[in-house]
């Protein structure tokens, strides 16, 4: 049986890029949410969670509208960067980022809200600005939440499918990620192949997660945190 590894490569690449992008966008946004005393906070929090509420295919349908070069958002991208956001890998990245946004924000915000404010103050009084404090003090001290956010986002982007299929259109070597490929095999009644692909996806994901958790486990034992 010919085994095509490319969809897996695409899936992992997609999940990786989306996780990185959402980390970069999510940390400041979550920080803003967790520190603002503004009354609009509950509104923003609720809106942040909304992308998960829509069924992925439906969200994908709307994204397809907004991201296509005929539409406003897609047009800007197209004209500024010459990137088409539909039926392209870049499009998958943007669409998955939107869909997975809440999965990244919420755990991080939870972490920020339960951190001991004293150590943040202590960092300022050590002469460090907000940025260094964020990276050296705050983020290391919310590691369980950060890990949750990264793992959920990564795993979810790997498994995501409705949005990806809609916006990407399963073009081989471009937007046909593993989840789409497996779906096609199931649809095609090629069950044995579907089983093998599913197992491969599970094993790869399991190994990635295992490494992440194992490193985390070791570090924690060393620093005596959490025991």
């Amino acid at each position: 049986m010919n085994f095509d590894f490319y969809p897996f490569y695409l899936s992992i690449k997609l999940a990786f890029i989306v996780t990185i992008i959402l980390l970069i966008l999510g940390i400041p946004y979550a920080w803003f949410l967790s520190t603002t005393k503004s009354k609009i906070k509950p509104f923003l929090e609720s809106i942040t969670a909304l992308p998960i509420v829509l069924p992925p295919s439906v969200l994908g349908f709307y994204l397809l509208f907004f991201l296509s070069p005929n539409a406003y958002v897609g047009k800007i991208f197209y004209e500024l960067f010459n990137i088409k956001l539909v039926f392209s890998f870049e499009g998958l990245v943007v669409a998955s980022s939107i869909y997975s946004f809440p999965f990244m924000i919420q755990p991080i915000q939870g972490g920020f809200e339960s951190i001991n404010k004293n150590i943040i103050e202590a960092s300022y009084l050590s002469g460090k600005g907000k940025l260094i404090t964020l990276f050296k003090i705050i983020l290391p001290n919310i590691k369980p939440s950060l890990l949750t956010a990264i793992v959920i986002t990564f795993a979810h982007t790997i498994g995501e499918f409705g949005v990806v299929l809609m916006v990407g259109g399963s073009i081989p070597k471009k937007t046909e990620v593993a989840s789409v490929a497996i779906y096609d095999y199931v649809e095609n009644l090629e069950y044995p192949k579907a089983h093998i692909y599913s197992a491969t996806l599970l094993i790869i994901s399991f190994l990635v997660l295992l490494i992440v958790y194992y490193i985390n486990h070791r570090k924690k034992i060393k620093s005596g945190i959490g025991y």
Partner: protein
Amino acid sequence: MSYIHINVSKNLFGAQKNMKLEMEFNIEKNDFLAISGESGSGKTTLLRIIAGLEEANGEIRVGDEIWLSNTNLQTRDIVSCGKDKEKTRKRKGKDKDKDCNVFNGLWYKNRFLPPQKRKIGFVFQDFALFPNMNVLENLLYVQKDKKLANKLLEMVGMKNLSERYPNTLSGGQKQRIALCRALMRKPEILLLDEPFSALDEKRKEELQNEIYFFHKEFNLTTIMVSHSSTEIYKLADKMIEIKNGKIIKKGTPREILLKTRGSEKFSLKGRIIDIINTDIINIAVVSLGSHIVEIVISQKEAEKFKKNDEVIISTKAFHPNIKGIK
């Protein structure tokens, strides 16, 4: 002009309903100022306002830098602050320049220097060590000066523990690291919030000496919250005592603490903690601060006094005998 000028006010929840913290005082360069006062009187809050960790109204000036300026504007001054500035209070942390804001419905001129720009070292009452870093990393975070870090650790007797994480330290050990971390910044102003409370007496004395040395050596201006008169007398040149957010005494420790001043008699205030009657003699055990002495008393006195009485112990001799120990 004094080195530090402080004139601040802030509403707090006090022990008796709401309490307003209102203080005005000056500190000269290289002063060692002690702050005492009962629990909940606003000592920690004052330090936090000076450090910029807490909002307050009023003014703090250090040297020629304005750290906080938050004064109520006259109506005619408002001209330059447009309606759109209504939200500038939020931006306080960033803006060094003149700005305006609304607080309790009034307009204020606003300057606020963020904590990280104030050259201070702060020892927190609850230490606030970074749990993700070991002892040495906690110090090096402030400044990459390994030599200084090791020197400070040596000084507090914790050189051997430099690779331990804060979670595995005892209370006193944490307190010492917090002190070292504050000194790592080579601050101009050192703020200490009961920095010796968790230490045994021997260690306490050692550290007090070290702090005093640091204060002199590096020309620091130090503000220390403390409950112990000895500590204050020993270390401070000036002191203020506060109560319910207000200054009730101001002066040198000599003026405020020396209770026998002017008296020719050597006398100490104490409290009887025990009276022991043996067949032959009666002994009163009297606590004099952290000292405990036994004093032989007459039968009559033994009947007169009871446990917990406050007493003054004095001698008629003009010269108490004072003798060096080795």
